């Protein structure tokens, strides 16, 4: 059996000088085509867990494995360029055009210009933005929903096997948000990538996740399918379902 795309083995993280762990003994494995919705309240350690994967933070205990290799053994920039990263809308570079934003990793990787350009157009089309209309625009000339589409396209640029999404639709109005969630779901099937999707919205988690990971005080207190989540008796699951 081949190794999972992403595997966390008892990963913990404590901020330097702080005794209490922000993430504590988190373990899970993620295969291609799976989306793990990391659900939890603010401060439960969801975002920190994502940052431990692309080494924006280094685990204080435990190991992270990517495609059968320890991330600690990989060169950090190479590791990050091999992982798509989507954050809330501020993550776009305000002084780059849409095209330059999406083509950033290809540029860092010194792709030939023609290939990078073709990839940018392909990705913009994939996320539902007409390349001729949007490629030359700047982020401030886009709506929130369009910016988020660009963010997803940018993360996909180098065709990474793993995508980390940190509340990608958090800053959107409810209508746009629902629209993007639906499209994202369709995209998931098409792409077949492993994804970790951080959200505090239980409906979003149930919609986009093939599995739900519920975090509470730095621990992964529940891990299972959406159906198992709905049936779970864990008090934090109940709390989210009642919300």
């Amino acid at each position, binding site marked *: 059996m081949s190794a999972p795309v992403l595997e966390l083995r008892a990963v913990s993280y404590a901020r330097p000088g702080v005794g209490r762990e922000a993430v504590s003994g988190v373990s899970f494995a993620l295969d291609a085509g799976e989306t793990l919705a990391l659900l939890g309240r603010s401060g439960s350690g969801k975002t920190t867990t994502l940052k431990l994967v692309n080494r*924006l933070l280094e685990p204080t205990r435990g190991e992270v494995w990517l495609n059968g290799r320890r991330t600690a053994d990989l060169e950090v920039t190479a590791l990050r360029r091999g992982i798509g990263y989507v954050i809330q809308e501020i993550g776009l570079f*305000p002084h780059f055009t849409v095209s330059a934003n999406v083509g950033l*990793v290809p540029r860092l990787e010194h792709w030939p210009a023609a290939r990078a350009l073709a990839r940018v157009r392909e990705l913009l089309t994939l996320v539902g933005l007409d390349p001729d209309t949007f490629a030359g625009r700047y982020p401030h000339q886009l709506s929130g929903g369009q910016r988020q589409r660009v963010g997803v396209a940018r993360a996909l640029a180098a065709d990474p096997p793993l995508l980390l999404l940190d509340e990608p639709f958090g800053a959107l109005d409810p209508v746009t948000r629902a629209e993007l969630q639906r499209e994202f779901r369709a995209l998931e099937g098409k792409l077949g990538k492993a994804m970790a999707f951080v959200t505090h919205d239980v409906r979003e988690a149930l919609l986009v996740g093939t599995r739900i990971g519920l975090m509470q005080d730095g621990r992964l207190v529940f891990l299972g399918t959406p159906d198992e989540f709905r049936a779970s008796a864990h008090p934090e699951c109940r709390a989210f379902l009642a919300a």
Partner: protein
Amino acid sequence: MNIIEFYARNAREAIGLLGQHLVLVGISTLVAAAIGMPLGVALTRRPRWRGAVLGLANVFQTIPSLALFGFLIPLPFIGGIGARTAIVALVVYALLPIIRNTYTGITGVDPAVREAGLGMGMRDRELLWLVELPLSAPVILAGVRIATVVGVGTATIAAAIGAGGLGVYIFRGVATVNDTLILAGALPAALLALLADAGLGLVERRLRRT
């Protein structure tokens, strides 16, 4: 004799002094930028040095300019009478706003944007050139603008150590109690400062727009 008559009679000398003035300010600001910007960037990477470097630049700033020109005269290599000494002193004055604005400009870049860059696999150098410097360019340029405007004024004192410039008329006017002569130096210096301010301000606004 009014100032217009004065310039008409001494056109060649006046233009020469204006030219000297421009050279003093231009060279010193460029040198200060060449030292101050990398230093400001270095401080963002080594925040522990921040207090010491900014403190020192601050102390330089507080030395009265006439005194600084005087202190420099006896020093070997950088001292002596003339333009070279004046440029050293002007560089010292121009450093603080350039270092400070470079530092604050870069540290003022939205942390989320910086983290996005790192998260996408930018190396430190790439982050600096592709993200931090472009986004902080207006603030850095504002520092250069302040340095230039201050430099135009301070450079008038350079005449005291034989470096020439528009200060020659001012000092001569003070010595002979001749208001026209003082004005002949002060007026173009003031105009020059305003012009530099407006010109660099224009570039700064253009940078801010994007």
